[in-house]
Protein backbone atom coordinates (compact mmCIF):
# COMPACT_ATOMS: atom_id res chain seq x y z
CA UNK A 1 0.00 0.00 0.00
CA UNK A 2 2.56 2.44 1.11
CA UNK A 3 4.94 1.78 -1.76
CA UNK A 4 2.15 2.05 -4.26
CA UNK A 5 1.16 5.37 -2.91
CA UNK A 6 4.73 6.53 -3.06
CA UNK A 7 5.00 5.39 -6.60
CA UNK A 8 1.89 7.24 -7.54
CA UNK A 9 3.14 10.45 -6.05
CA UNK A 10 6.49 9.87 -7.58
CA UNK A 11 4.84 9.79 -10.98
CA UNK A 12 2.80 12.85 -10.17
CA UNK A 13 6.00 14.61 -9.28
CA UNK A 14 7.46 13.57 -12.57
CA UNK A 15 4.57 14.98 -14.54
CA UNK A 16 4.67 18.14 -12.50
CA UNK A 17 8.39 18.56 -12.93
CA UNK A 18 8.08 17.85 -16.62
CA UNK A 19 5.56 20.62 -17.04
CA UNK A 20 7.57 22.99 -14.94
CA UNK A 21 10.75 22.28 -16.93
CA UNK A 22 8.92 23.11 -20.12
CA UNK A 23 7.51 26.29 -18.61
CA UNK A 24 10.88 27.40 -17.27
CA UNK A 25 12.58 26.63 -20.56
CA UNK A 26 9.95 28.71 -22.32
CA UNK A 27 10.52 31.63 -19.99
CA UNK A 28 14.24 31.25 -20.46
CA UNK A 29 14.00 31.38 -24.23
CA UNK A 30 11.47 34.20 -24.31
CA UNK A 31 13.50 36.39 -21.99
CA UNK A 32 16.85 35.48 -23.47
CA UNK A 33 15.73 36.44 -26.94
CA UNK A 34 15.34 40.18 -26.34
CA UNK A 35 18.75 40.28 -24.72
CA UNK A 36 20.38 38.55 -27.65
CA UNK A 37 18.43 40.79 -29.97
CA UNK A 38 19.66 43.92 -28.23
CA UNK A 39 23.21 42.65 -28.21
CA UNK A 40 23.13 41.69 -31.89
CA UNK A 41 21.36 44.88 -32.88
CA UNK A 42 24.08 46.91 -31.23
CA UNK A 43 26.55 45.35 -33.67
CA UNK A 44 24.32 45.54 -36.73
CA UNK A 45 23.52 48.02 -39.42
CA UNK A 46 20.46 49.95 -38.20
CA UNK A 47 18.73 49.50 -41.54
CA UNK A 48 18.93 45.75 -41.20
CA UNK A 49 17.43 46.01 -37.73
CA UNK A 50 14.54 48.30 -38.59
CA UNK A 51 13.63 46.29 -41.67
CA UNK A 52 13.44 43.11 -39.62
CA UNK A 53 16.26 41.37 -41.48
CA UNK A 54 18.27 40.95 -38.34
CA UNK A 55 16.60 38.18 -36.42
CA UNK A 56 19.13 36.63 -34.09
CA UNK A 57 22.72 37.32 -35.04
CA UNK A 58 24.33 40.58 -36.11
CA UNK A 59 23.74 41.52 -39.72
CA UNK A 60 26.14 43.76 -41.61
CA UNK A 61 28.43 43.73 -38.60
CA UNK A 62 29.68 47.10 -37.42
CA UNK A 63 31.29 48.60 -34.35
CA UNK A 64 30.18 52.09 -35.31
CA UNK A 65 27.66 52.31 -32.47
CA UNK A 66 30.19 51.51 -29.78
CA UNK A 67 32.76 53.75 -31.39
CA UNK A 68 30.23 56.56 -31.18
CA UNK A 69 29.44 55.86 -27.54
CA UNK A 70 33.06 55.60 -26.51
CA UNK A 71 33.95 58.75 -28.42
CA UNK A 72 31.66 60.51 -26.03
CA UNK A 73 34.12 61.13 -23.22
CA UNK A 74 31.46 62.07 -20.76
CA UNK A 75 30.22 58.48 -20.70
CA UNK A 76 32.96 57.63 -18.23
CA UNK A 77 32.19 60.63 -16.11
CA UNK A 78 28.56 59.51 -16.15
CA UNK A 79 29.56 56.02 -15.11
CA UNK A 80 31.56 57.31 -12.17
CA UNK A 81 28.71 59.56 -11.07
CA UNK A 82 26.14 56.82 -11.40
CA UNK A 83 28.22 54.38 -9.42
CA UNK A 84 28.62 56.99 -6.72
CA UNK A 85 24.90 57.76 -6.62
CA UNK A 86 24.01 54.08 -6.64
CA UNK A 87 26.35 53.05 -3.84
CA UNK A 88 25.89 56.00 -1.52
CA UNK A 89 22.24 56.50 -2.40
CA UNK A 90 21.35 52.88 -1.77
CA UNK A 91 23.18 52.95 1.51
CA UNK A 92 21.17 55.99 2.58
CA UNK A 93 17.95 54.31 1.43
CA UNK A 94 18.64 51.22 3.48
CA UNK A 95 19.77 53.16 6.50
CA UNK A 96 16.52 55.10 6.44
CA UNK A 97 14.11 52.39 5.35
CA UNK A 98 15.15 49.35 7.35
CA UNK A 99 14.95 50.89 10.82
CA UNK A 100 11.63 52.52 9.94
CA UNK A 101 10.29 49.22 8.61
CA UNK A 102 11.41 47.50 11.78
CA UNK A 103 9.69 50.09 13.93
CA UNK A 104 6.49 49.74 11.94
CA UNK A 105 6.62 45.98 12.27
CA UNK A 106 6.61 46.16 16.09
CA UNK A 107 3.25 46.00 17.75
CA UNK A 108 4.58 47.98 20.69
CA UNK A 109 4.82 51.11 18.58
CA UNK A 110 2.32 53.60 19.89
CA UNK A 111 0.46 55.29 17.03
CA UNK A 112 1.56 52.70 14.52
CA UNK A 113 -1.43 53.10 12.25
CA UNK A 114 -1.20 56.85 12.29
CA UNK A 115 2.45 56.77 11.29
CA UNK A 116 1.73 54.19 8.63
CA UNK A 117 -0.99 56.47 7.33
CA UNK A 118 1.46 59.37 7.22
CA UNK A 119 3.72 57.30 5.03
CA UNK A 120 1.05 55.84 2.83
CA UNK A 121 -0.48 59.21 2.19
CA UNK A 122 2.73 60.23 0.46
CA UNK A 123 2.38 57.33 -1.94
CA UNK A 124 -0.54 59.10 -3.49
CA UNK A 125 -0.29 62.74 -2.73
CA UNK A 126 2.56 65.09 -3.34
CA UNK A 127 2.98 68.77 -4.01
CA UNK A 128 4.19 68.39 -7.56
CA UNK A 129 7.20 69.69 -9.34
CA UNK A 130 7.16 73.40 -8.66
CA UNK A 131 6.65 73.38 -4.87
CA UNK A 132 9.13 70.54 -4.53
CA UNK A 133 11.67 72.47 -6.49
CA UNK A 134 11.09 75.60 -4.44
CA UNK A 135 11.43 73.50 -1.33
CA UNK A 136 14.74 72.02 -2.44
CA UNK A 137 15.84 75.48 -3.43
CA UNK A 138 15.04 76.79 0.03
CA UNK A 139 17.36 74.16 1.49
CA UNK A 140 20.02 75.17 -1.03
CA UNK A 141 19.93 71.70 -2.54
CA UNK A 142 19.28 72.58 -6.17
CA UNK A 143 22.25 71.72 -8.35
CA UNK A 144 23.85 69.60 -5.67
CA UNK A 145 24.71 65.93 -5.65
CA UNK A 146 23.28 65.75 -2.16
CA UNK A 147 19.78 66.21 -3.44
CA UNK A 148 20.10 63.37 -5.94
CA UNK A 149 21.34 61.16 -3.12
CA UNK A 150 18.63 61.90 -0.61
CA UNK A 151 15.72 62.36 -2.98
CA UNK A 152 13.40 59.42 -2.49
CA UNK A 153 15.31 58.38 0.62
CA UNK A 154 12.40 56.24 1.62
CA UNK A 155 10.09 54.51 -0.81
CA UNK A 156 6.88 53.65 0.94
CA UNK A 157 6.43 50.62 -1.25
CA UNK A 158 9.77 49.24 -0.14
CA UNK A 159 9.06 50.22 3.41
CA UNK A 160 5.90 48.13 3.38
CA UNK A 161 7.62 45.20 1.71
CA UNK A 162 10.32 45.22 4.36
CA UNK A 163 7.85 45.63 7.19
CA UNK A 164 5.81 42.70 5.91
CA UNK A 165 8.90 40.60 5.65
CA UNK A 166 10.02 41.44 9.17
CA UNK A 167 6.68 40.71 10.72
CA UNK A 168 5.93 37.57 8.75
CA UNK A 169 9.23 35.73 8.77
CA UNK A 170 10.70 36.52 12.14
CA UNK A 171 8.71 34.72 14.81
CA UNK A 172 7.62 36.64 17.84
CA UNK A 173 9.30 34.09 20.11
CA UNK A 174 12.64 35.24 18.83
CA UNK A 175 12.06 38.81 19.93
CA UNK A 176 10.75 37.45 23.17
CA UNK A 177 13.86 35.37 23.71
CA UNK A 178 16.09 38.31 22.95
CA UNK A 179 14.18 40.42 25.39
CA UNK A 180 14.63 37.85 28.09
CA UNK A 181 18.34 37.87 27.33
CA UNK A 182 18.27 41.55 28.09
CA UNK A 183 18.42 42.94 24.56
CA UNK A 184 16.84 46.30 23.91
CA UNK A 185 15.24 47.32 20.62
CA UNK A 186 18.52 48.42 19.13
CA UNK A 187 20.10 45.09 19.88
CA UNK A 188 17.04 43.24 18.71
CA UNK A 189 17.21 45.09 15.39
CA UNK A 190 20.93 44.85 14.77
CA UNK A 191 21.66 41.45 16.25
CA UNK A 192 18.50 39.49 15.51
CA UNK A 193 16.43 41.08 12.78
CA UNK A 194 19.08 42.28 10.34
CA UNK A 195 21.08 39.04 10.23
CA UNK A 196 17.90 37.05 9.66
CA UNK A 197 16.64 39.36 6.94
CA UNK A 198 19.42 39.16 4.40
CA UNK A 199 17.11 38.18 1.54
CA UNK A 200 14.83 41.18 1.96
CA UNK A 201 17.76 43.50 2.50
CA UNK A 202 19.22 42.27 -0.76
CA UNK A 203 15.89 42.72 -2.51
CA UNK A 204 15.56 46.24 -1.16
CA UNK A 205 19.13 47.07 -2.09
CA UNK A 206 18.37 45.80 -5.54
CA UNK A 207 15.16 47.80 -5.86
CA UNK A 208 16.79 50.97 -4.64
CA UNK A 209 20.06 50.37 -6.45
CA UNK A 210 18.39 49.75 -9.78
CA UNK A 211 16.28 52.84 -9.16
CA UNK A 212 19.42 54.92 -8.73
CA UNK A 213 21.06 53.25 -11.67
CA UNK A 214 18.20 54.08 -14.02
CA UNK A 215 17.37 57.44 -12.53
CA UNK A 216 17.50 60.45 -14.83
CA UNK A 217 14.45 62.61 -14.17
CA UNK A 218 15.56 64.06 -10.85
CA UNK A 219 19.02 64.77 -12.18
CA UNK A 220 17.60 66.32 -15.29
CA UNK A 221 15.56 68.77 -13.24
CA UNK A 222 17.83 69.34 -10.29
CA UNK A 223 21.27 69.11 -11.89
CA UNK A 224 20.49 71.13 -15.01
CA UNK A 225 23.47 73.38 -14.49
CA UNK A 226 25.89 70.79 -13.08
CA UNK A 227 26.86 68.79 -16.11
CA UNK A 228 29.88 67.36 -14.34
CA UNK A 229 27.54 65.73 -11.82
CA UNK A 230 25.25 64.09 -14.36
CA UNK A 231 24.60 60.38 -14.09
CA UNK A 232 25.20 58.02 -16.98
CA UNK A 233 21.54 57.88 -17.97
CA UNK A 234 21.41 61.59 -18.64
CA UNK A 235 24.33 61.43 -21.04
CA UNK A 236 22.87 58.39 -22.73
CA UNK A 237 19.57 60.19 -23.08
CA UNK A 238 21.36 63.10 -24.68
CA UNK A 239 22.96 60.82 -27.25
CA UNK A 240 19.58 59.33 -28.06
CA UNK A 241 17.79 62.66 -28.30
CA UNK A 242 20.11 63.72 -31.07
CA UNK A 243 18.78 60.77 -32.97
CA UNK A 244 15.16 61.69 -32.44
CA UNK A 245 15.79 65.23 -33.46
CA UNK A 246 15.82 64.65 -37.19
CA UNK A 247 12.19 63.64 -37.31
CA UNK A 248 10.92 66.50 -35.22
CA UNK A 249 13.10 68.98 -37.07
CA UNK A 250 11.64 67.71 -40.28
CA UNK A 251 8.12 68.29 -39.08
CA UNK A 252 8.80 71.64 -37.47
CA UNK A 253 10.81 73.09 -40.33
CA UNK A 254 13.49 75.65 -39.65
CA UNK A 255 16.42 73.50 -40.64
CA UNK A 256 17.66 73.20 -44.17
CA UNK A 257 17.32 69.91 -45.99
CA UNK A 258 21.07 69.41 -45.89
CA UNK A 259 21.00 69.76 -42.13
CA UNK A 260 18.13 67.33 -41.95
CA UNK A 261 20.16 64.91 -44.05
CA UNK A 262 23.00 65.28 -41.60
CA UNK A 263 20.66 64.77 -38.65
CA UNK A 264 19.22 61.68 -40.28
CA UNK A 265 22.69 60.27 -40.59
CA UNK A 266 23.11 60.96 -36.91
CA UNK A 267 19.73 59.38 -36.28
CA UNK A 268 20.99 56.30 -38.04
CA UNK A 269 23.91 56.15 -35.68
CA UNK A 270 21.61 56.87 -32.77
CA UNK A 271 19.49 53.90 -33.75
CA UNK A 272 22.49 51.70 -33.42
CA UNK A 273 23.63 53.51 -30.35
CA UNK A 274 20.20 52.95 -28.82
CA UNK A 275 20.97 49.27 -28.46
CA UNK A 276 24.62 49.76 -27.58
CA UNK A 277 23.56 52.11 -24.82
CA UNK A 278 21.45 49.38 -23.24
CA UNK A 279 24.33 46.96 -23.35
CA UNK A 280 26.59 49.55 -21.78
CA UNK A 281 24.20 50.33 -18.96
CA UNK A 282 22.84 46.84 -18.31
CA UNK A 283 26.04 44.83 -18.14
CA UNK A 284 26.98 45.99 -14.64
CA UNK A 285 23.49 45.18 -13.40
CA UNK A 286 23.65 41.70 -14.85
CA UNK A 287 27.11 41.20 -13.45
CA UNK A 288 26.11 41.82 -9.86
CA UNK A 289 22.94 39.80 -9.92
CA UNK A 290 24.42 36.30 -9.63
CA UNK A 291 26.37 37.56 -6.67
CA UNK A 292 23.17 38.79 -5.01
CA UNK A 293 21.39 35.57 -5.81
CA UNK A 294 23.27 33.54 -3.28
CA UNK A 295 21.51 35.45 -0.53
CA UNK A 296 18.17 34.15 -1.73
CA UNK A 297 19.36 30.60 -2.03
CA UNK A 298 20.97 30.46 1.35
CA UNK A 299 17.73 30.73 3.14
CA UNK A 300 17.29 31.59 6.73
CA UNK A 301 17.84 28.93 9.30
CA UNK A 302 14.79 29.84 11.23
CA UNK A 303 14.16 26.28 12.20
CA UNK A 304 17.53 26.00 13.84
CA UNK A 305 17.00 29.19 15.75
CA UNK A 306 13.68 28.01 17.01
CA UNK A 307 15.06 24.91 18.58
Amino acid at each position, binding site marked *: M*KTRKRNFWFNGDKVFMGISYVALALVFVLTLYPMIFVLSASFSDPGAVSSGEMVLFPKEFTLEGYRYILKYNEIWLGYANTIFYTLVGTFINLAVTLPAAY*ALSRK*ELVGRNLILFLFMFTMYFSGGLIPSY*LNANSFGLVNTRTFVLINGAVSVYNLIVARTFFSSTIPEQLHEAARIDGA*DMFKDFFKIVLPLSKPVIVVLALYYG*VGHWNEYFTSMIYLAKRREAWPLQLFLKEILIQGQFAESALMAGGLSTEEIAYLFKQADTANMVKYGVIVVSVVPMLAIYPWLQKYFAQGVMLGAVKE
Partner: protein
Amino acid sequence: MFSVKGTRISPAGKRGGKRSFRNLLKCWQLYVFLLPALLYIILFVYKPMYGILIAFKDFRIGDGIWGSEWVGMENFQRLFDSYWFPVILKNTLTLSLLSLVVGFPLPIIFALLLNELRWKKVRNAIQTVSYAPHFISTVVICSMIMLFLSPSSGIVNHFLNLLGIDSVYFMQDTGLFKWVYVLSGVWQGLGWSSIIYSAALSGVDRNLLEAAQIDGASRIQRIIHVNIPVLVPTMMVLLILQCGSLLGVGYEKVYLLQTDANITASEVISTYVYKMGLIEADFSFSTAVNLFNSVVNSVILIVVNFLSNRVTKNGLW
Protein backbone atom coordinates in the same frame (compact mmCIF):
# COMPACT_ATOMS: atom_id res chain seq x y z
CA MET B 1 23.90 55.34 21.17
CA PHE B 2 23.81 51.64 21.54
CA SER B 3 24.98 51.81 25.10
CA VAL B 4 21.64 53.08 26.27
CA LYS B 5 20.93 50.71 29.07
CA GLY B 6 17.80 52.29 30.37
CA THR B 7 15.76 50.03 28.21
CA ARG B 8 16.81 46.85 29.89
CA ILE B 9 13.60 45.02 30.23
CA SER B 10 12.56 44.13 33.63
CA PRO B 11 11.03 40.68 33.80
CA ALA B 12 8.65 41.95 36.42
CA GLY B 13 6.88 44.15 33.92
CA LYS B 14 3.43 43.07 34.92
CA ARG B 15 2.86 45.89 37.27
CA GLY B 16 0.85 48.69 35.61
CA GLY B 17 3.11 51.68 36.15
CA LYS B 18 6.22 49.93 35.11
CA ARG B 19 4.50 48.55 32.06
CA SER B 20 3.53 51.90 30.57
CA PHE B 21 6.95 53.23 31.42
CA ARG B 22 8.45 50.29 29.62
CA ASN B 23 6.22 50.86 26.61
CA LEU B 24 7.19 54.46 26.50
CA LEU B 25 10.85 53.60 26.56
CA LYS B 26 10.34 51.06 23.85
CA CYS B 27 8.44 53.57 21.81
CA TRP B 28 11.15 56.07 22.31
CA GLN B 29 13.60 53.71 20.73
CA LEU B 30 11.26 52.87 17.89
CA TYR B 31 10.76 56.56 17.22
CA VAL B 32 14.50 56.93 16.89
CA PHE B 33 14.31 54.26 14.22
CA LEU B 34 11.52 56.13 12.51
CA LEU B 35 13.08 59.54 12.81
CA PRO B 36 15.12 59.70 9.58
CA ALA B 37 12.25 58.43 7.45
CA LEU B 38 9.72 60.72 9.11
CA LEU B 39 12.04 63.66 8.84
CA TYR B 40 12.46 62.99 5.17
CA ILE B 41 8.78 62.79 4.34
CA ILE B 42 7.94 65.79 6.48
CA LEU B 43 10.64 68.01 5.02
CA PHE B 44 10.54 66.84 1.44
CA VAL B 45 7.02 65.57 0.89
CA TYR B 46 4.68 67.22 3.36
CA LYS B 47 6.30 70.62 3.32
CA PRO B 48 5.69 71.17 -0.42
CA MET B 49 2.30 69.41 -0.20
CA TYR B 50 0.48 72.72 -0.55
CA GLY B 51 1.11 72.30 -4.26
CA ILE B 52 -2.06 70.23 -4.40
CA LEU B 53 -3.94 73.50 -4.23
CA ILE B 54 -2.93 74.08 -7.83
CA ALA B 55 -5.65 71.64 -8.79
CA PHE B 56 -8.27 74.02 -7.48
CA LYS B 57 -6.73 77.16 -8.91
CA ASP B 58 -6.01 78.74 -12.21
CA PHE B 59 -2.31 78.51 -11.59
CA ARG B 60 -0.14 81.24 -13.01
CA ILE B 61 3.54 81.25 -12.40
CA GLY B 62 3.63 84.96 -11.90
CA ASP B 63 1.07 84.82 -9.11
CA GLY B 64 2.56 81.79 -7.40
CA ILE B 65 0.56 79.00 -5.87
CA TRP B 66 -0.94 81.02 -3.06
CA GLY B 67 -1.68 84.04 -5.21
CA SER B 68 -3.36 82.28 -8.10
CA GLU B 69 -7.07 82.57 -8.50
CA TRP B 70 -9.39 79.92 -7.02
CA VAL B 71 -11.52 78.17 -9.60
CA GLY B 72 -13.01 75.40 -7.50
CA MET B 73 -13.60 72.20 -9.40
CA GLU B 74 -13.19 73.72 -12.84
CA ASN B 75 -10.05 71.78 -13.67
CA PHE B 76 -11.69 68.51 -12.69
CA GLN B 77 -14.75 69.46 -14.66
CA ARG B 78 -12.57 69.87 -17.71
CA LEU B 79 -11.55 66.21 -17.42
CA PHE B 80 -15.04 64.90 -16.66
CA ASP B 81 -16.66 66.95 -19.41
CA SER B 82 -14.27 65.74 -22.03
CA TYR B 83 -15.70 63.62 -24.80
CA TRP B 84 -12.91 61.13 -24.17
CA PHE B 85 -13.31 60.79 -20.43
CA PRO B 86 -15.46 57.62 -20.46
CA VAL B 87 -13.17 56.08 -23.07
CA ILE B 88 -9.91 56.81 -21.31
CA LEU B 89 -11.29 55.71 -17.97
CA LYS B 90 -12.43 52.43 -19.45
CA ASN B 91 -9.13 51.89 -21.29
CA THR B 92 -7.13 52.69 -18.19
CA LEU B 93 -9.08 50.23 -16.10
CA THR B 94 -8.98 47.57 -18.80
CA LEU B 95 -5.21 47.77 -19.09
CA SER B 96 -4.55 47.78 -15.38
CA LEU B 97 -7.07 45.08 -14.46
CA LEU B 98 -5.77 42.82 -17.19
CA SER B 99 -2.22 43.52 -16.06
CA LEU B 100 -3.28 42.58 -12.57
CA VAL B 101 -5.08 39.38 -13.49
CA VAL B 102 -2.38 38.15 -15.84
CA GLY B 103 0.65 39.84 -14.40
CA PHE B 104 0.14 39.21 -10.72
CA PRO B 105 0.04 35.40 -10.45
CA LEU B 106 2.69 34.62 -13.05
CA PRO B 107 5.73 35.85 -11.10
CA ILE B 108 4.55 33.85 -8.10
CA ILE B 109 4.20 30.68 -10.14
CA PHE B 110 7.53 31.37 -11.75
CA ALA B 111 9.24 31.81 -8.38
CA LEU B 112 7.67 28.62 -7.05
CA LEU B 113 8.72 26.56 -10.06
CA LEU B 114 12.18 28.00 -9.97
CA ASN B 115 12.41 27.11 -6.32
CA GLU B 116 11.81 23.47 -7.17
CA LEU B 117 14.68 23.37 -9.59
CA ARG B 118 17.52 21.48 -8.01
CA TRP B 119 20.39 22.36 -10.33
CA LYS B 120 21.65 25.49 -8.80
CA LYS B 121 23.49 26.69 -11.88
CA VAL B 122 20.52 26.28 -14.16
CA ARG B 123 18.30 28.00 -11.64
CA ASN B 124 20.67 30.92 -11.35
CA ALA B 125 21.01 31.18 -15.09
CA ILE B 126 17.25 31.24 -15.65
CA GLN B 127 16.78 33.76 -12.89
CA THR B 128 19.46 36.09 -14.20
CA VAL B 129 18.23 35.92 -17.77
CA SER B 130 14.60 36.41 -16.84
CA TYR B 131 15.42 39.50 -14.84
CA ALA B 132 17.43 41.13 -17.61
CA PRO B 133 14.61 42.49 -19.80
CA HIS B 134 13.59 44.72 -16.92
CA PHE B 135 16.61 46.85 -17.73
CA ILE B 136 15.73 47.55 -21.32
CA SER B 137 14.40 51.08 -21.49
CA THR B 138 10.78 51.61 -22.42
CA VAL B 139 11.69 53.33 -25.66
CA VAL B 140 13.70 50.36 -26.84
CA ILE B 141 11.20 47.80 -25.56
CA CYS B 142 8.49 49.54 -27.53
CA SER B 143 10.49 49.71 -30.72
CA MET B 144 11.28 46.02 -30.26
CA ILE B 145 7.61 45.23 -29.78
CA MET B 146 6.81 47.10 -32.98
CA LEU B 147 9.55 45.24 -34.85
CA PHE B 148 8.61 41.80 -33.55
CA LEU B 149 4.94 42.35 -34.29
CA SER B 150 5.38 43.86 -37.72
CA PRO B 151 2.98 42.14 -40.14
CA SER B 152 5.52 41.92 -42.94
CA SER B 153 8.86 41.44 -41.25
CA GLY B 154 8.22 40.68 -37.58
CA ILE B 155 9.31 37.41 -36.05
CA VAL B 156 5.94 36.81 -34.41
CA ASN B 157 4.08 36.98 -37.69
CA HIS B 158 6.73 34.87 -39.41
CA PHE B 159 6.03 32.28 -36.77
CA LEU B 160 2.27 32.58 -37.27
CA ASN B 161 2.77 32.25 -41.02
CA LEU B 162 4.70 29.05 -40.45
CA LEU B 163 1.69 27.71 -38.59
CA GLY B 164 -0.43 28.66 -41.55
CA ILE B 165 -2.01 31.69 -39.92
CA ASP B 166 -2.27 34.98 -41.81
CA SER B 167 -0.27 37.93 -40.53
CA VAL B 168 -1.96 39.80 -37.71
CA TYR B 169 -1.93 43.59 -37.65
CA PHE B 170 -1.32 43.78 -33.93
CA MET B 171 -0.68 47.49 -33.70
CA GLN B 172 -3.55 48.56 -35.94
CA ASP B 173 -6.13 46.52 -34.06
CA THR B 174 -8.13 48.04 -31.24
CA GLY B 175 -9.01 44.63 -29.78
CA LEU B 176 -5.46 43.37 -29.59
CA PHE B 177 -3.87 46.42 -28.04
CA LYS B 178 -4.54 45.41 -24.45
CA TRP B 179 -2.96 42.02 -25.01
CA VAL B 180 0.10 43.53 -26.62
CA TYR B 181 0.44 45.90 -23.71
CA VAL B 182 -0.14 43.37 -20.94
CA LEU B 183 1.76 40.41 -22.35
CA SER B 184 4.77 42.53 -23.25
CA GLY B 185 4.62 43.84 -19.70
CA VAL B 186 4.67 40.31 -18.33
CA TRP B 187 7.47 39.40 -20.68
CA GLN B 188 9.53 42.31 -19.46
CA GLY B 189 8.67 42.14 -15.80
CA LEU B 190 8.27 38.47 -14.95
CA GLY B 191 11.75 37.84 -13.62
CA TRP B 192 12.03 41.15 -11.87
CA SER B 193 8.69 40.78 -10.09
CA SER B 194 9.51 37.26 -8.98
CA ILE B 195 12.59 38.36 -7.06
CA ILE B 196 10.69 39.35 -3.98
CA TYR B 197 8.95 35.97 -3.93
CA SER B 198 12.23 34.14 -4.36
CA ALA B 199 13.53 36.06 -1.41
CA ALA B 200 10.47 35.22 0.63
CA LEU B 201 10.77 31.55 -0.31
CA SER B 202 14.18 31.47 1.27
CA GLY B 203 12.32 31.86 4.54
CA VAL B 204 10.65 28.47 4.17
CA ASP B 205 11.35 26.24 7.09
CA ARG B 206 13.48 23.41 5.72
CA ASN B 207 12.56 21.10 8.58
CA LEU B 208 8.96 21.47 7.65
CA LEU B 209 9.72 20.58 4.05
CA GLU B 210 11.70 17.55 5.11
CA ALA B 211 8.97 16.47 7.44
CA ALA B 212 6.45 16.80 4.65
CA GLN B 213 8.64 14.74 2.37
CA ILE B 214 8.96 11.98 4.94
CA ASP B 215 5.21 12.00 5.28
CA GLY B 216 5.02 11.27 1.59
CA ALA B 217 3.71 14.60 0.43
CA SER B 218 4.13 15.24 -3.27
CA ARG B 219 5.85 18.29 -4.63
CA ILE B 220 2.56 19.94 -5.42
CA GLN B 221 1.34 19.26 -1.93
CA ARG B 222 4.52 20.62 -0.46
CA ILE B 223 4.23 23.74 -2.56
CA ILE B 224 0.62 24.26 -1.58
CA HIS B 225 0.96 23.49 2.09
CA VAL B 226 4.43 24.69 2.92
CA ASN B 227 5.71 27.17 0.34
CA ILE B 228 2.62 29.15 -0.54
CA PRO B 229 1.65 29.95 3.06
CA VAL B 230 5.06 31.56 3.44
CA LEU B 231 4.36 33.74 0.42
CA VAL B 232 0.86 34.76 1.41
CA PRO B 233 1.72 37.84 3.49
CA THR B 234 3.99 39.25 0.78
CA MET B 235 1.50 38.30 -1.91
CA MET B 236 -1.38 40.00 -0.21
CA VAL B 237 0.56 43.15 0.50
CA LEU B 238 1.72 43.42 -3.08
CA LEU B 239 -1.75 42.65 -4.36
CA ILE B 240 -3.25 45.39 -2.23
CA LEU B 241 -0.62 47.86 -3.36
CA GLN B 242 -1.16 46.95 -6.97
CA CYS B 243 -4.91 47.39 -6.62
CA GLY B 244 -4.11 50.79 -5.22
CA SER B 245 -2.60 51.89 -8.50
CA LEU B 246 -5.37 50.90 -10.86
CA LEU B 247 -5.61 54.34 -12.43
CA GLY B 248 -1.88 54.72 -12.50
CA VAL B 249 -1.14 53.35 -15.96
CA GLY B 250 1.97 55.27 -16.97
CA TYR B 251 2.01 57.29 -20.15
CA GLU B 252 5.32 56.37 -21.69
CA LYS B 253 4.81 52.83 -22.88
CA VAL B 254 1.21 53.37 -23.95
CA TYR B 255 2.17 56.52 -25.78
CA LEU B 256 4.95 54.81 -27.66
CA LEU B 257 2.68 51.97 -28.72
CA GLN B 258 -0.12 54.25 -29.82
CA THR B 259 -1.12 54.61 -33.43
CA ASP B 260 -4.05 56.46 -34.97
CA ALA B 261 -5.51 53.06 -35.74
CA ASN B 262 -5.56 51.77 -32.16
CA ILE B 263 -6.07 54.99 -30.28
CA THR B 264 -9.67 54.33 -29.27
CA ALA B 265 -8.35 51.38 -27.25
CA SER B 266 -5.03 52.85 -26.24
CA GLU B 267 -5.79 56.36 -25.06
CA VAL B 268 -5.50 56.31 -21.28
CA ILE B 269 -5.74 59.04 -18.68
CA SER B 270 -2.01 59.67 -18.55
CA THR B 271 -1.51 59.85 -22.31
CA TYR B 272 -4.50 62.12 -22.63
CA VAL B 273 -3.02 64.57 -20.16
CA TYR B 274 0.42 64.24 -21.66
CA LYS B 275 -0.82 65.14 -25.13
CA MET B 276 -2.76 68.06 -23.80
CA GLY B 277 0.47 69.26 -22.24
CA LEU B 278 2.25 68.93 -25.55
CA ILE B 279 -0.10 71.46 -27.09
CA GLU B 280 0.13 73.79 -24.15
CA ALA B 281 1.39 72.96 -20.68
CA ASP B 282 -1.24 73.49 -17.98
CA PHE B 283 -0.14 72.73 -14.44
CA SER B 284 -3.58 73.12 -12.96
CA PHE B 285 -5.15 70.58 -15.25
CA SER B 286 -2.44 67.95 -14.87
CA THR B 287 -2.40 68.42 -11.11
CA ALA B 288 -6.16 68.02 -10.99
CA VAL B 289 -6.02 64.81 -13.00
CA ASN B 290 -3.26 63.44 -10.78
CA LEU B 291 -5.30 64.31 -7.73
CA PHE B 292 -8.32 62.57 -9.17
CA ASN B 293 -6.20 59.47 -9.83
CA SER B 294 -4.76 59.57 -6.34
CA VAL B 295 -8.10 59.90 -4.64
CA VAL B 296 -9.62 57.03 -6.59
CA ASN B 297 -6.54 54.88 -6.10
CA SER B 298 -6.40 55.45 -2.39
CA VAL B 299 -10.08 54.69 -2.02
CA ILE B 300 -9.57 51.42 -3.87
CA LEU B 301 -6.60 50.66 -1.66
CA ILE B 302 -8.60 51.23 1.50
CA VAL B 303 -11.45 49.05 0.28
CA VAL B 304 -9.19 46.23 -0.88
CA ASN B 305 -7.22 46.36 2.33
CA PHE B 306 -10.41 46.10 4.32
CA LEU B 307 -11.55 43.09 2.31
CA SER B 308 -8.16 41.46 2.58
CA ASN B 309 -8.15 41.90 6.34
CA ARG B 310 -11.56 40.29 6.48
CA VAL B 311 -10.82 37.39 4.19
CA THR B 312 -7.16 36.54 4.63
CA LYS B 313 -6.27 38.31 7.87
CA ASN B 314 -3.51 40.01 5.94
CA GLY B 315 -3.45 43.71 5.35
CA LEU B 316 -1.35 46.80 5.33
CA TRP B 317 -2.79 47.90 8.64
